[in-house]
C-alpha cells in the first residue's frame, strides 16, 4: 500500500531528532522492550548473522515516532500507528522523525510519518491522533 504523498514538499508539522544512537541505548531498549535478540547488543552475534556490527531495533525508531506524537499531541492521543520498516539503523545514527498532517477532522487528525537517517528513509507510516487529548495532560 502506498501512503498519501501530500505534504511531502511542505514543512513538517511535527519533528523530533533522536540520537546519536548508542550501544547503551540499545541495551536499555532490550530491557525496556523485552526484545532480547542479541544482534542488537552483541557484536559477535551480529557478525554471525552476517551484519558488520549490531543494528538498532526497528521498534526503537518506531518508539521515537511515538514519542514525537505524544510530545506534540498528548500522552494518550495516539489512536493508530502504522509503520513500514525500510532500512537498518546503526550505532551513531541520528534519527530524524517528521510528521505531516494529511487530514484534519473535528475529532482527529491523520499524519504521514517518516524517520530518516541522513536522506535514507528507515521508517515510513501513518498515524491517527485524537484532538481531544491535546491539552488534557498539560500539552
Amino acid at each position, binding site marked *: 500500500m502506498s501512503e498519501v504523498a501530500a505534504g511531502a514538499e511542505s514543512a513538517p508539522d511535527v519533528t523530533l531528532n533522536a540520537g546519536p544512537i548508542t550501544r547503551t541505548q540499545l541495551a536499555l531498549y532490550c530491557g525496556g522492550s523485552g526484545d532480547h535478540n542479541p544482534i542488537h547488543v552483541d557484536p559477535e552475534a551480529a557478525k554471525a548473522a552476517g551484519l558488520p556490527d549490531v543494528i538498532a531495533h526497528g521498534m526503537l525508531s518506531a518508539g521515537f515516532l511515538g514519542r514525537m506524537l505524544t510530545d506534540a499531541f498528548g500522552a494518550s492521543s495516539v489512536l493508530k500507528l502504522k509503520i513500514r520498516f525500510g532500512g537498518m539503523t546503526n550505532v551513531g545514527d541520528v534519527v530524524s522523525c517528521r510528521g505531516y498532517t494529511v487530514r484534519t477532522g473535528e475529532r482527529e487528525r491523520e499524519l504521514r510519518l517518516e524517520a530518516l537517517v541522513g536522506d535514507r528513509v528507515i521508517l515510513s507510516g501513518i498515524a491517527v491522533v485524537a484532538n481531544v487529548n491535546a491539552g488534557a*495532560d498539560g500539552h
Partner: protein
Amino acid sequence: MINRSFIGASRTIGSIKLEASMVRLFAQAVGITDEIFLDDAAARTAGLPAVPMPPTFLFCLRSMADKDSTRFFREMGVRLERLLHGEQEIELDRPVYAGETLSFDSTIADIYEKADGKLSFVREKVVAVDEGRLPVGSLISTFVIRN
C-alpha cells in the same frame, strides 16, 4: 512457500500486567522525558488515573506476555534467520494505564507471495483485551520471509 492452510490459525498468547516501572524503563530507552510517563504522581496531577502506556509499548507488552513467540513460524517450517519484520500496525481503542492486565490472542490473518515466490508474507493479527474481556487495541504485524 508457506501452506496457506495456516490462515485462520489462532492461539492464546497470555496475559500480563502493565506496571509503571515497565513504562519508566521503556521511556528511558526511547528518551521520553514527559513526567506523565515517568511518575505516577505527575500522571495523577495531570488528571490521569495512572501512568499511561506509550503507544508502541503495546507491541512490547505482547512480546513480554508471549512465552513461545516463534511457535507459528516453527509450525510453518519458516527458518527464523530468513524472517523480517516488514510492517507493524498498532491500534488503540482507548488509553491503557499502569495497573491494568491485558490478555493477547493471535490469529494468522493472511499468507501470500510476491516476486514469483521469492518472498512470502505472513500477516498476524493480535487482539488485546482488558480484564472485562473488552477490546483495548490490536497489533497487525506483517512478516517477510526470504525463500
